């Protein structure tokens, strides 16, 4: 079963310089992703970066993931 720790590790591994706080019950997850590379990008672009970091896993292992994406300045 996927854990919030998995979500955190996977995003941080796939998205350089990011810091993640994740919660979830194995089916539905939510994560706050903080990354300076989000600067200047709109929400859609930021979410795409996180999904890209997770790759195939969104299709195969993660049912739902709510995201909040912030730069360190926005926290």
């Amino acid at each position, binding site marked *: 079963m996927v854990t919030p720790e998995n979500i955190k590790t996977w995003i941080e591994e796939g998205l350089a310089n990011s810091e993640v706080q994740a919660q979830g019950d194995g089916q539905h997850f939510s994560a706050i992703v903080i990354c300076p590379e989000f600067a200047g990008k709109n*929400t*859609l672009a930021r*979410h*795409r970066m996180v*999904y890209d970091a997770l790759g195939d896993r*969104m*299709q195969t292992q993660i049912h*739902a*993931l*709510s*995201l*909040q994406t912030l730069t360190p300045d926005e926290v």
Partner: protein
Amino acid sequence: MSVTEQIQQTITDNEVVLFMKGTPDFPQCGFSGKAVHMLRQCGCHDFASVNVLEDPDVRQGIKDFSNWPTVPQLYIKGEFIGGCDIMVEMFEKGELQELLK
């Protein structure tokens, strides 16, 4: 018509399209239900909706088409806007209402 062509036609023929699980009156997923709610909160009631649960080809097809892994998905004037989280954020900033005028 391929699934891609079907999807392209739907988003071209309709100004606002929500790809969702279930129907607006009977959503089958909390996020899809919330997306419908957001649209209605913006005063948009006559949007087109596609129930991806009815057709597995569309369910996968829309994810490939948008390069986005989850449903619901909102299209306005042929452009992909985002999923539920993004709709909520845009609603809170007043941006969703602007787009739907």
